């Protein structure tokens, strides 16, 4: 499946990755060749095959409902780019 400029722009936007105008053709080119490799698997008939999400196919273990974490705010916010009054700051969120 070949990807064109608009596909690349759409994917980059969905993934929130900024792209320079000049880089787009190279991305389109490389992504197309990767998709070309991937499309080799389209030739296989997998009807009736159950998808495998986890190799061992075990089941989820449950945790007891117990509070085990205490307040680590100061330590955890020491590595944050921008905080104030205990809040993480981001450019204004418009609802």
């Amino acid at each position, binding site marked *: 499946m070949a990807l064109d400029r608009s596909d690349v722009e*759409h994917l980059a936007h*969905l993934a*929130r990755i900024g792209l320079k105008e000049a880089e787009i053709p190279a991305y389109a080119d490389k992504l197309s060749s990767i998709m070309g490799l991937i499309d080799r698997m389209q030739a296989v008939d997998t009807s009736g095959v159950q998808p495998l*999400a*986890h190799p061992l196919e*075990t*089941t*989820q*273990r*449950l*945790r*007891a*409902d*117990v*509070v*085990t*974490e205490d*307040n*680590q*705010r100061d330590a*955890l*916010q020491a590595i944050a780019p*921008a905080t*104030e*009054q*205990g*809040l*993480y*700051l*981001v*450019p*204004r*969120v*418009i*609802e």
Partner: protein
Amino acid sequence: MQWEIVIGLEIHAQLTTASKIFSGSATTFGAEPNTQASLVDLAMPGTLPVLNAQAVKNAVKFGLAIDAEIGMTNVFARKNYFYPDLPKGYQISQMDLPIVGKGHVDITLDDGTVKRVGVTRAHLEEDAGKSLHEDFQGMSGIDLNRAGTPLLEIVSEPDMRSAKEAVAYARTIHSLVRYLGICDGNMAEGSFRCDCNVSVRPKGQTEFGTRCELKNINSFRFIERAINTEVQRQIELIEDGGTVVQETRLYDPNKDETRSMRSKEEANDYRYFPDPDLLPVVIEPSFVEQVRSELPELPQQKRERFQSEFGLSAYDASVLSASREMADYFEQVQRTCGDAKLAANWVMGELSSLLNKSDIEIDQSPVSAEQLGGMILRIKDNTISGKIAKMVFEAMANGEGDADQIIEARGLKQVTDTGAIEAMLDEVLAANAAQVEQYRASDEAKRGKMFGFFVGQAMKASRGKANPQQVNQLLKQKLDG
């Protein structure tokens, strides 16, 4: 044109667990910002989710209560979108295989009719944090305390046909989750949130109209108003030749209008896929049976029992079972006084109007169920009349003590001594000789009307304390001779 309204609800109920759905952080409401946001909640690189057993149990409880299929193998999936209150850039939710499948609830409408509403599914997911829009030099502040709080998202079928039905459904689910003890139902704190999908179609048309989603409405009153406002908007739009656009809208209670929300992810391509950090949740049949055996009596069962055991009307039974607190209160009053009908009348009458007036919930009632039951006992043993009881009740509400203390302190004990009542009646008849003459000259029909006058005079003379039955009986004897 005649329009038909079609409404479906998505309710987010925060589950009352001590810790979050995938981490060991506390879920207490109102903590200082980000003091309940641990490594996992902050999506620190390398952290992993582990599922809370209580969240699973709560969801199964709900599923059993709405007679739903339980997802014996259910799977968590990632819903991918970017938002600052969503630390991982995806929400862990359930998509193809939810923990609760198809079920239903019965709702009672104002006219007493019962309607069955389908529940499409209910699934577990994690709540997001909160964006605070106070101005930090043009920035928003993010508090992730709520991130990871367990939610049960309950999705209804589009079965409601009016705002009132939608409210009745929401109240029924609200009552149910509180009965089950799986959600505190606090709408002001956001523990119980409703999104309403609303559309209209010409009456008789089978296919649905285009729907709009009204987000996060935080009271039952607003559900009704928001839906009616939105319905009005859609009808006017269509009648003016426009078309409804599928979108998310926000209800503004101050302006009583809905307005389009700028979409979080314009394309809405959430790229769901099974979360590889979590394995399929397999629920054993024995677990389901254990949960079933622990279920409390549910509103519907309670309603039926109130009718069969106490002989209450369908309406009374449904009012008294609307909340677990109300039902518990009623049953305590009934146990204390041994008279279900009187208990029902007092709880639905004087007590309810007292609570309404003071705008408080029944679990904060100034008159305890034992006090009310104790007072009803005094009505039954003729210590006080129903009329005097209202005074006693008011005094109890003012904190003046139990019924017996108040009756004693205020001298409200009913007079039942026949001699004393007769003497009092003789005085009353003597003071109203003309009326007595008139009465005796009248025919049976007229006499009936006049009799009430003498009763009123007699009760007044006794300051309400004479036993009304005795007054009636003795008066009749004296007047009719």
